[in-house]
């Protein structure tokens, strides 16, 4: 008798959860577009999207500012959640996150050299768009350098804990260099750097958004390709080798994906914390599975929704000021992490 096993991967419960998350994503996307310092009514927004409305100010705000920002939030949320999940699985450590390999520290170093080093040495003030593009470029170069070191190490070093420790050490070394640069830099550049570290979703637009989209798409595609390897690797190296997984290659793909995702987010939005650690836990709790074929799409949705909602909150709807996204993510994210940790005390293995 032929049996159907499709229900094993996507049982009814998961289908219901995915549908609910889908609706929630559309809802939070809409909310993010409509709310802000200026409230745009739903009707007006729909008119702007499907034809033209009379209000040019609203059209500009919606299409030129809020839409790119909302898309950035979706991409960044998905990227951070997927990279965090991959790191927790690969390192079999619940505290691992997108930045555990030192990738954001590398990006910070790149930005710091750009902002604090080169500009103060050359005494030129990089202005406007050029500055923001070169910031992203510097961050990407910084994180790629860290990635190359990590890949070189992971080929030679077999033990995953050693790689984790080395990653953290590279990160600390990069942070130390950033501190030295900060110490010697002038006030305006220092402020620009500090603002970059607070994170922002609103500085990605036009060409940058395309680049960001491509980076995130490649990163997530690599993660999707890694699903079977991730499922086996979470059992530990001995099992993974036992069933014939090429550990070195699989890890390299995971590290490349993580670097693209975490490095891309850091480059375009600054180092946004907590999403990458909290969302994978929430995903495991919600879906009650260890299967990455479910977890990866799940955390993509959860990550996007979370960052959209966090951004909506950080915009302080109705006020003309906004809070740094990184701080809001931390303040909202920490209680969630604490709740998750207290609720599932069993973290042995993962």
């Amino acid at each position, binding site marked *: 008798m*032929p*049996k159907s*096993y499709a229900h*094993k991967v996507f049982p009814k419960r998961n289908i219901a959860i995915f549908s609910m998350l889908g609706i929630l994503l559309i809802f939070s996307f809409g909310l993010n577009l409509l709310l802000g310092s200026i409230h745009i009514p739903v009707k007006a927004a729909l008119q702007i999207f499907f034809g033209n409305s009379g209000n040019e100010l609203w059209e500009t705000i919606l299409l030129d500012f809020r839409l790119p920002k909302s898309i950035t939030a979706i991409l960044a949320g998905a990227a951070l959640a997927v990279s965090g999940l991959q790191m927790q699985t690969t390192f079999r450590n619940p505290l691992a996150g997108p930045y555990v390999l030192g990738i954001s520290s590398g990006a910070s170093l790149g930005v710091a050299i750009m902002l604090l080093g080169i500009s103060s040495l050359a005494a030129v003030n990089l202005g406007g768009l050029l500055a923001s593009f070169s910031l992203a470029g510097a961050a990407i170069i910084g994180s790629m350098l860290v990635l190359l070191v990590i890949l070189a190490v992971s080929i030679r070093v077999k033990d995953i804990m050693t790689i984790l420790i080395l990653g953290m050490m590279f990160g600390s070394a990069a942070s130390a260099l950033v501190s030295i640069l900060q110490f010697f830099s002038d006030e305006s550049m220092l402020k620009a750097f500090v603002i970059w570290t607070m994170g922002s979703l609103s500085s990605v637009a036009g060409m940058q958004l395309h680049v960001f989209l491509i980076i995130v798409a490649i990163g997530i595609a690599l993660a999707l390709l890694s*699903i*079977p390897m991730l*499922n*086996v690797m*979470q*059992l*530990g190296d*001995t*099992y993974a*080798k*036992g*069933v*014939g*997984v*090429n550990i070195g290659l699989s890890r390299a793909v995971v590290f490349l994906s993580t670097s693209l995702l975490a490095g891309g987010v850091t480059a375009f939005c600054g180092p946004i914390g907590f999403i990458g650690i909290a969302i994978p836990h929430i995903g*495991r709790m919600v*879906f*009650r*599975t*260890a*299967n990455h074929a479910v977890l990866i799409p799940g955390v993509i949705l959860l990550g996007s929704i979370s960052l959209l909602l966090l951004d909506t909150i950080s915009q302080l709807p109705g006020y003309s000021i906004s809070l740094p996204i990184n701080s809001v993510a931390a303040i909202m994210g920490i209680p969630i992490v604490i709740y998750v940790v207290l609720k*599932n005390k*069993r*973290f*042995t*293995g*993962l």
Partner: protein
Amino acid sequence: MSNHPISISNILLGYNPLNPLLPGFSVDAPKGEIIALVGRNGIGKSTLIRTIIGEQMPLNGTVCLNGVPLKHWSRRQRARLIAYVPSEQVRIPNLFIRDFVALARFPHLGWSKSLGSNDWDLVDQSLMLVGIDHLANRDISTVSDGERQRAMIAFALAQNSDIILLDEPTAFLDLPNKYEVVRLLSNLARNQQKTIIYSTHDLQGAISEVDTLWMMLESGFVYGAPEDIAFSNKFAKLLEKSELTFDTKTGLFNNQREHTKPITLEGQGNALFWTKRLVERLGFVSTEQANTEYRVCCKPLNSAYIWEVYQHSALISKVNTLTELGVLLRKL
């Protein structure tokens, strides 16, 4: 060259060529046999297992699988031929036992790594063979150690390999589970015609179930049927420098004791046997001569027993249980 599933020739194990763990040796593992790998801690049992699965290079010598040297097998081919059950316990939350066992199909799947209905049938069959099909939808981090060990064996079965290597599969188990798991492995070797090698410290359990013992000793590698090793008194070498002795009459491992005080025992059957065990544990030598200082007489009384203790043929005490007898004898 033999075509046994595993054939090891002139292998030298260790990390330092000048100081190998034990002298070089050759041995084969035939089809359908269960083999227990025993030896003191640190002698290289894990090293041997890691060498057979290709995780570690030997200092010298070769390992052949089905007559072909290990290095000619690709990672994937090797995974289809050998399943390895490590000693680390899998305790991943939210991982269901059926999904865990399904991961063993990895080396048999196409590029998409999705399981067909044949694969799932094999997974369910493996769960059934180890007797945990009722736990298929349980979270592996919430089951008992015995159930988890069975799930790990089911994983090896689902890998559908001719050879299964297990690193101390009984280490975490209680006594009944230890026996049941070894019994399960020996049935699998016989009925599924698999070659099963497991390392263990539980010699007593091994000698009653396995076909062959591989004994790693500092002086060299010894192998053979457990009865042969017992009969030719080779266990003595394994137990060198320890307090244990192997009783070739009973097939039991005993703690060596200084038996000094002679004692006379009278009685029959089981009662006499366990009384003898008790007095020997307490350092007496049991004899059947009647001229010793102490004498213990166990007699049936109604449906129970009574033990009478005599000193120079004068009755000094009567007790109803062996526990009380033990308390009494310790004071003498």
